[in-house]
């Protein structure tokens, strides 16, 4: 039982470094045609006329508009409100209005010129303030205790309004999808996606095909980060429609420009806090309003908002909480899933608010958090009681100890007040965060995900799940979990490719759920196959003596031993095929009331604390993160190196979001639609990272793992911004904290208070 926690090499490593791993656009296909998309130039307009002039297009080119759809014009996610192609009205710049296909990429692009569209511009709603008095896309509310009375009674009232911006995924492999039709009207779609069964559902919805006549194959992914959760369904539908029309396989490969302007992003947010604290800084009551910019269509926004509301109060104890959440509609591209799924936005706000409360009372960031940190036995606003796997204090104390946080922070505060000319400014910041493991609320119960295992003729066990490898390492970790549970070796287990004709719906590769949920079920089905073979073997022997299995070898009490695969092979020779499947059942006690938002929203939570050190150039206000110390408690570390890699990568994305990544829009158009203008961290921006993994196993899962994919996305930005505040004294409530923004705040004299505040009520709102 030493496999888990070790770091065996990835099975796909040699193919990745050797260039033999085929991604979606690397796959050759006989007779392939290319698709291209005509996009709306208007944020909001009526389509008065739409005409395809084939005589002006390259010969043979085909065009599809909304009228040509064989079924409902809707991408099937939570609902089908998101049109496959704009119909009558366009609601954002870049919205697909028509798609074309031709024999070459060049001809496809030329064919776009043969489409005429007549638009009548309508008044667009371009930002949250304009959208505020219109109907919301979705709303939620969560309430515990007596918020109004307690805010009245509190010693100090602290208010703040916090803004976060868009974030573009920038997976280095752009969206790509191929589709073709085989005999008997069978549709095959292949490409880069996190959730083959999401795509499958949309294809069935639009084409009205029986499930088995629609086959979806996920290729290895060149990065997803949530961006290949919702959008692949759109591009898959486009490719399938075109393939049908031209009777060729069709590939749509977005270029970077299209990928930036046309696909979903992280929701911008405005979060408003009112907190009442006692004289010691203990939270008495909080009123929080979360507003997300949903863009033009609902897509996955309701579940993003749900996670946002459930994380808005952070890993802190507060008996009286009222949280209201709204997603507003604007005439901008729809926002959707992005690593963290709403939690990074609200935890940025909560962490900034904690720092502000601390400053009002003259308490440093560590002290104010220690006084409020969530512990075993405490209740979340949903009423859920924290069990022994709650490790917020553990993470906080460890991070502070490793970095001498308190002392460093005080020292740098003093240094800031007495600056030495020409010296760069240094700062250190802290964040504490948590992330609910797996799907929100009753998600897993609704999903009913299924995992299968089958015995192969060569004696190996094929595991069938829809989990897709995108760098997170599921192809490495799932066989390890199977091996750990069954005593077999990881190489005795093979993963079936994520192809809907070969694997059952084990749910999407999202929400950090693959190890926790899918992994547990994989361990069960593989163990069951092992048991069936051992039973059969025992029965065929004289003595039905017990066997032990270790490292792929079956041993009997009398010292005899056989390789498991040998026994399995013999089983195959004489017996019927062996296939077992299992449906995931969330724990019985995981009951959540979607109406009142009370109950167990997540079976368990992972926790983390980050300390970020920054250097700020006093002239340019350029921020350079120097070192990050991340302490993450993930339940159980399944593969140490992959786990550290997830923390490092997620933290860097969080720093990018907090300090440099900025989507600029003007009248609904993206101004920086390329990698030279939308800047993400390079290796030169990557600080030294020290990752500490802690384990407080969760008893409900097979091995105690809580998931790690999204957790690190929650902590980097608030800690970095807190460090900038420590260095410069500029009070920052908006990210990204670019030099331009810091300069604007400096000019507006937004400085942190120099000492404790009078406990007077109604401190000025921060935003």
């Amino acid at each position, binding site marked *: 039982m030493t496999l888990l926690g070790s*770091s065996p*090499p*990835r099975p*796909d*490593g*040699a*193919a*990745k*470094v*050797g*260039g033999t*791993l085929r*991604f979606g*656009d*690397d796959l050759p296909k006989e007779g392939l045609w290319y698709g291209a998309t005509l996009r709306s130039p208007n944020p909001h307009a009526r389509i008065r006329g739409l005409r395809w002039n084939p005589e002006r297009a390259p010969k043979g080119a085909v065009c599809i508009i909304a009228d040509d759809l064989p079924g409902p014009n809707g991408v099937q996610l939570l609902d089908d409100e998101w049109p496959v192609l704009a119909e009558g009205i366009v609601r954002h710049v870049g919205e697909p209005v028509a798609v074309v296909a031709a024999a070459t990429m*060049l001809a496809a692009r030329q064919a776009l010129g043969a489409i005429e569209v007549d638009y009548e511009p309508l008044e667009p709603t371009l930002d949250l303030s304009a959208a505020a008095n219109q109907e919301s896309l979705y709303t939620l509310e969560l309430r515990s205790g007596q918020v109004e009375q307690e805010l009245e009674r509190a010693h100090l009232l602290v208010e703040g309004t916090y803004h976060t911006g868009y974030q573009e*995924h*920038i*997976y*280095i*492999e*752009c969206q790509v999808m191929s589709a073709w039709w085989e005999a008997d009207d069978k549709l095959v779609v292949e490409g880069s996606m996190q959730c083959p069964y999401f795509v499958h559902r949309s294809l069935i919805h639009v084409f009205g095909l029986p499930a088995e006549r629609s086959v979806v194959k996920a290729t*290895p992914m*060149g*990065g*997803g*980060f949530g961006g290949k959760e919702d959008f692949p369904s759109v591009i898959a539908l486009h490719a399938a429609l075109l393939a049908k029309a031209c009777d060729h396989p069709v590939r749509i490969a977005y*270029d*970077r420009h299209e990928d930036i302007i046309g696909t979903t992003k992280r929701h911008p947010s405005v979060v408003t806090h009112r907190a009442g604290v006692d004289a010691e800084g203990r939270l008495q009551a909080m009123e929080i309003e979360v507003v997300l910019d949903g863009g033009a269509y609902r897509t996955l926004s309701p579940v993003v908002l749900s996670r946002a509301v459930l994380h808005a109060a952070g890993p802190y104890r507060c008996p009286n909480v009222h949280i209201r959440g709204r997603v507003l509609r604007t005439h901008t591209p729809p926002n959707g899933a992005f690593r963290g799924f709403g939690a990074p936005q609200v935890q940025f706000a909560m962490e900034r608010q904690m720092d502000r409360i601390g400053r009002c009372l003259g308490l440093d960031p560590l002290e104010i958090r220690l006084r409020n940190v969530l512990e075993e036995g405490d209740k979340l606003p949903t009423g859920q009681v924290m069990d022994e796997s709650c490790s917020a204090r553990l993470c906080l104390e460890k991070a502070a100890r490793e970095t001498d946080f308190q002392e460093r922070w005080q020292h740098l505060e003093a240094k800031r007040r007495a600056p030495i000319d020409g010296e760069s400014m240094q700062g250190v910041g802290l964040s504490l965060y948590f992330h609910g493991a797996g799907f929100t609320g009753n998600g897993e119960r609704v999903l009913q995900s299924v995992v299968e295992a089958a015995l192969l003729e060569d004696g190996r066990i094929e595991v069938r799940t829809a989990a897709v490898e*995108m*760098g*997170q*390492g599921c192809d490495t970790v799932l066989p390890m979990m199977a091996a750990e549970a069954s005593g077999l070796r990881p190489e005795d287990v093979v993963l079936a490719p994520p192809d809907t004709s070969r694997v059952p719906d084990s749910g999407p590769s999202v929400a950090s759920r693959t190890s926790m949920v899918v992994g547990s079920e994989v361990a069960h089905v593989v163990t069951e196959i092992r048991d069936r073979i051992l039973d059969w073997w025992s029965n065929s022997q004289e003595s039905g003596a017990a066997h032990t299995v270790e490292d792929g070898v079956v041993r009997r009490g009398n010292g005899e031993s056989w390789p498991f695969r040998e026994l399995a092979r013999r089983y195959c020779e004489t017996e019927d095929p062996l296939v077992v499947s299992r449906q995931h059942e969330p724990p019985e006690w995981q009951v959540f009331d979607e109406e009142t938002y009370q109950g167990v929203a997540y079976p368990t939570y992972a926790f983390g604390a980050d300390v970020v050190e920054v250097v700020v150039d006093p002239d340019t206000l*350029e*921020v*350079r*993160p120097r070192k990050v110390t991340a302490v993450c408690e993930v339940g159980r570390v399944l593969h140490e*190196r*992959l786990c550290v*890699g997830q923390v*490092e*990568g*997620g*933290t*860097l*994305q969080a720093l990018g979001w907090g*300090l*440099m990544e900025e989507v600029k829009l003007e009248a609904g158009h993206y101004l920086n639609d*390329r*990698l*030279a203008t939308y*800047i*993400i*961290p*390079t*290796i*030169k*921006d*990557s600080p030294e*990272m020290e990752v500490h993994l802690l384990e407080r196993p969760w008893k409900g899962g097979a091995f105690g793992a809580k998931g790690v994919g999204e957790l690190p996305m929650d902590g980097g930005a608030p800690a970095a911004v807190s460090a900038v505040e420590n260095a410069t004294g500029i009070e920052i409530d908006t990210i990204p904290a670019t030099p331009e923004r810091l300069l604007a705040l400096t000019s507006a004299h937004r400085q942190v208070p120099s000492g404790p505040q009078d406990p007077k009520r109604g401190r000025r709102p921060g935003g």
Partner: protein
Amino acid sequence: MEDNHRKKQQQKGPESGVTRRHFLTGAGIGAAGLVAGAPVATGAAPTESAAIIEVGEMVPLTLRINGHPRLLLVEPRWSLAYVLREKLVMTGTKLGCDRGECGACTVLVDGVPRYSCMTLALEAEETEITTLEGLLEGEDLGDVQQAFKEHDAFQCGYCTPGQVMSVEGLLRSNPDPSLDEIRLGVSGNLCRCGAYPNIFKATRRAAELKRGKGDRS
């Protein structure tokens, strides 16, 4: 924060001084009727002409890729990345932006890292082109590839071919780079998975592997 990939992009830009007009003239008009991208038996000698070449017209071209000459018919507008991926099906070279901003398409041209999406195939004539496939030593991984694998210097693996080529180029010109030199050497290659810490380790290890071989020989 810095955006050094932009600087790097300039460093990697065409250095040959070939202007568009110059190379169009030099390349001449190719033999019509040959199949695009298919190797041809004889290389028609380019004719001297200042005529503008129409889209779709082909010119013959010999590229030396991983030590092997490849005779091709190309459109003058085609990038080296396009020719490698689409015409030679050497898909080890990836595209992440196709405009010199991410580094996924990095190959070596005469031993120096270049963005193949920003290099016209015609520009690469008479150079020695090395791609990811060319670092393999038979069935075995090359030193940099081996080091990347050992140190898990990737997650999704999509930026990896470009990272490996940049490191290969760096180590050819600087066998023992410092941390800052490594930073600079791969600053033109974006990795959104954030595998940078392991890329440092892998680069150091690759330098060791290469030096080890140097010592033995």
